[in-house]
């Protein structure tokens, strides 16, 4: 389905659309998303049948009972109703509703009440205006906007159980190919789980309007082979790079207001802005507004408003020299 819909886009838009990246709910790659798309298929089939039946009847009535040009001008026979007919078209839909309800209840229970296996990876996702804070409490990892999870392969289950919270307003975590959306509500802890079966990149974004830059609150989920995930985790746990050649840039970072919102290494407590300890290991900046490179990073720090109008990160008005040093330092944070 995704491929079918992406093809004309690729042809007439001139824009290259990689079908593997289209976040279609009918191209599921994770256990709960599979359950949902099966349920959807079942409901689509039956509602499709109902549509064909009723629309067919309507068309039949319109054609069969249109007033003919040679009409005699008499009124047709008046019929006021019929008990048995009413009973029939009440009972049949009632039975269909019962079938839908039972099927739906089973999937709700299957997805929502699934027990967490001991091998699961626990992740905390905290929504902020307009970025995602991602914490792995057991692994001691803090990152942002790009979630890494292991795939479940060869009978070894490693689902990721996500704790969803919000630091400000209501957000919603939605990566259609892995699972439907669940809201991140302030003063409330929600949860969901995903279990990708093959490695890959899955795109999503915030699903509930959360203010000015709701459109640029993008999510990237990387499903890694177990060994790749473990390697990524090791690298994320490491202390930040301490390249002496970048010491000048580090001083700029510590001396300006950057440190009020961002953390590099150390206690890695919660701040207003994303953790930058391993900034350069991420593929995008500003929750997906730019792809990550030293040049893009420089442009972003120089003028965040230009890329994400309304963003809470202020323009720091650094001198070109300071900006160069700062970007040189941040670029070492692999």
């Amino acid at each position, binding site marked *: 389905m995704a491929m079918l*819909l992406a093809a004309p*886009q690729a042809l007439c*838009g001139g*824009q290259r*659309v990689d*079908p593997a*990246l*289209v976040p*279609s709910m009918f191209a599921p790659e994770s256990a709960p998303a599979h359950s*949902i798309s099966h*349920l*959807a298929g079942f409901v689509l089939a039956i509602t499709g049948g109902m*549509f064909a039946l009723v629309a067919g*009847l309507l068309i039949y*009535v*319109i054609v069969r*009972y249109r*007033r003919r040009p040679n009409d005699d001008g008499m*009124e*047709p*026979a*008046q*019929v*006021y109703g*019929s008990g048995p007919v*009413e009973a029939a078209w009440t009972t049949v*839909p009632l039975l269909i*509703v019962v079938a*839908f*309800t039972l099927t*739906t209840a089973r999937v*709700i*229970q299957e*997805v*929502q*009440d699934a027990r967490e296996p001991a091998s699961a990876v626990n992740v905390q996702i905290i929504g902020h*205006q307009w970025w995602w804070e991602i914490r792995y409490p057991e692994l001691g990892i803090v990152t942002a906007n790009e979630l890494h999870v292991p795939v479940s392969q060869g009978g070894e289950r490693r689902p990721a159980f996500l704790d*969803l919270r919000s630091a*400000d*307003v*209501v957000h*919603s975590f*939605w990566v259609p190919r892995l*699972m*439907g*959306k*669940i*809201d991140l*509500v*302030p*003063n*409330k802890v*929600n949860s969901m789980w995903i279990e990708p079966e093959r490695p890959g990149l899955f795109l999503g974004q915030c699903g*509930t*309007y959360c203010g*000015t830059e*709701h*459109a640029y609150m993008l999510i990237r989920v990387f499903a890694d082979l177990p060994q790749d995930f473990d390697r990524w985790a090791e690298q994320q746990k490491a202390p930040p790079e301490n390249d002496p050649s970048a010491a000048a840039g580090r001083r700029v970072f510590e001396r300006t207001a950057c440190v009020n919102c961002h953390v590099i290494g150390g206690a890695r407590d919660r701040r207003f802005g994303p953790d930058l300890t391993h900034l350069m290991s991420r593929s995008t900046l500003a929750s997906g507004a730019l792809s990550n490179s030293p040049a893009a990073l420089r442009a972003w720090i120089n003028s965040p408003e230009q890329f994400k*109008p*309304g963003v809470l990160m202020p323009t720091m008005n650094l001198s070109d020299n300071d900006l160069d040093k700062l970007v040189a330092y941040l670029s070492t944070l692999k």
Partner: protein
Amino acid sequence: MNDTSHLGEIAGGMPLAARAADDRTVLDTLHSWLVTVDHKKLGLMYILYGLGFLFIGGLEATLIRIQLIAPGLHVIAPVAFNQLFTMHGTTMVFLVGMPLIFGFANYLVPLMIGARDLAFPRLNAFGLWLSVFGGLLLYFSYIGGQGLSGAGSAPDVGWFAYAPLTAKAFSKGHSTDYWTLGILVSGFGSIATAANIITTIVCMRCRGMSLTRMPLLAWLYLVVCGMVLIAVSPLTAAQVMLLLDRFAGSHFFDTQAGGSAVLWMHFFWIFGHPEVYILVIPAFAFASEIIPVFSRKAIFGYPVMVGATCAIAFVSLGVWAHHMFTVGMTSTGNTFFVVSTMMIGVPTGIKIFNWLGTMWGGKLRFATPMLFSIAFLFQFLIAGLTGIMLACAPWDWQLNDSYFLIAHFHYVLVGAIVFMIFAAIYYWFPKATGRLLSERLGKWHFWLFLIGFHMTFDTMHFPGILGMPRRIYTYEADRGWGTLNLICTIGVAFQIAGVLIMSVNLLRSLRKGKPAGSDPWDAWTLEWSTSSPPPEYNFSEIPTVKSRRPLWDLKHPADPDWKYE
């Protein structure tokens, strides 16, 4: 011969009354409309007010669609875009939907039940002007949203204004306050008018019109107005609580002080879901009057239609949390709202089947009101089926707040309600003005609008399935949503063309339309027994009825309805 007739002779033999009417200045006419308590004038003003805001809301939608025509555009700034969809939604529900349904109720209910006015004519005028004042307050925010000394700013919190986005911390200035006050004030107007219409229907039916002989339209409006009383009250309460939060330091919805974001959702949706039925049941009412007349048959299953409407109303009060399947309710809570929501499909299906039963065996005339009604049947069928899909909570986790949801509820609000509003305009315009609308322009309007509607809203389901959320001011090129959005936007041009043709038709026919006579459609309910337009107090003599179709009985004395009912 006395002195006054002499005056008439001097003026060229013109009858005195006509001459006096001719002498009135524009100011006199305006004054007579401003101070009127006549249900027909108030009804027409409600309808004009609704149509005026329909143009404004449509313009806002057009700007939204232009911004989304291709990925990565910067035609409209993010904040301006967010204001546009907030104003579009709020306008269409509160300043278009509500005035239009009350306008038709005002105009039609007394005429159809053989009454001379509503029960409380002054309260009726009060309701209209409150509602207008609410609309003006909302739009005043464009000028005064940041205080009179600052630049204006319209609300940008979305039409359901989820907490805590509306808290002082996230919504500075006064834009949210104008939103709150606008809805609060127009809500008081709605409550007043609903109480008025209920009283009228219960107390002022003409002789012989028992409840079981009321036209279906009156029955459906009785139910709708009952729902308004129940549903608008929690909304009013919530708006008052929000005002207290913002001005008096309370913390109902202020999450940073321990308030609850979910509480607002419950308050809003226990209004918001019945509201959908408050808007769509009048569309059912129009269909239940128009389809029989153009099929030349009595409505099929009248008592079942009444029962189904009451069932819809009752169940619709218990389904609100299906807007909240993603909020993190327990599996039991989710399952309850799945069951209640699905149950609504049964009485709704019964209605569609009964309209089909009415057409079955008839002689269908495809005049413009009937064309809109037939399109309504197809579109409402689809809207109902996509509603069933959204009711499957797990699937809703995917579909909620995606463009699929936007397509679904525009199928209800445009495909069902706006289509039936158009049908009602074409059907009752001759009664209100004494002139027929042009059928040729009517058909142009119908086909252009139909094509535009389907281009925009059929297509709109698919970006949702491909993961496009609502309320984003732009999107990435690599998602595969571009072409679909382009088609959606092109459809808007057709819809605009259709509405412009309707406007031309209305304005031209008002002056040059063929005289309609009192009963141009050969119809059966009481409004067609009086002249077009009806005289000031509708009926010189209060009619007496013996069946649901009094004019059928008059036209077929040998075979009247009351023998069979």
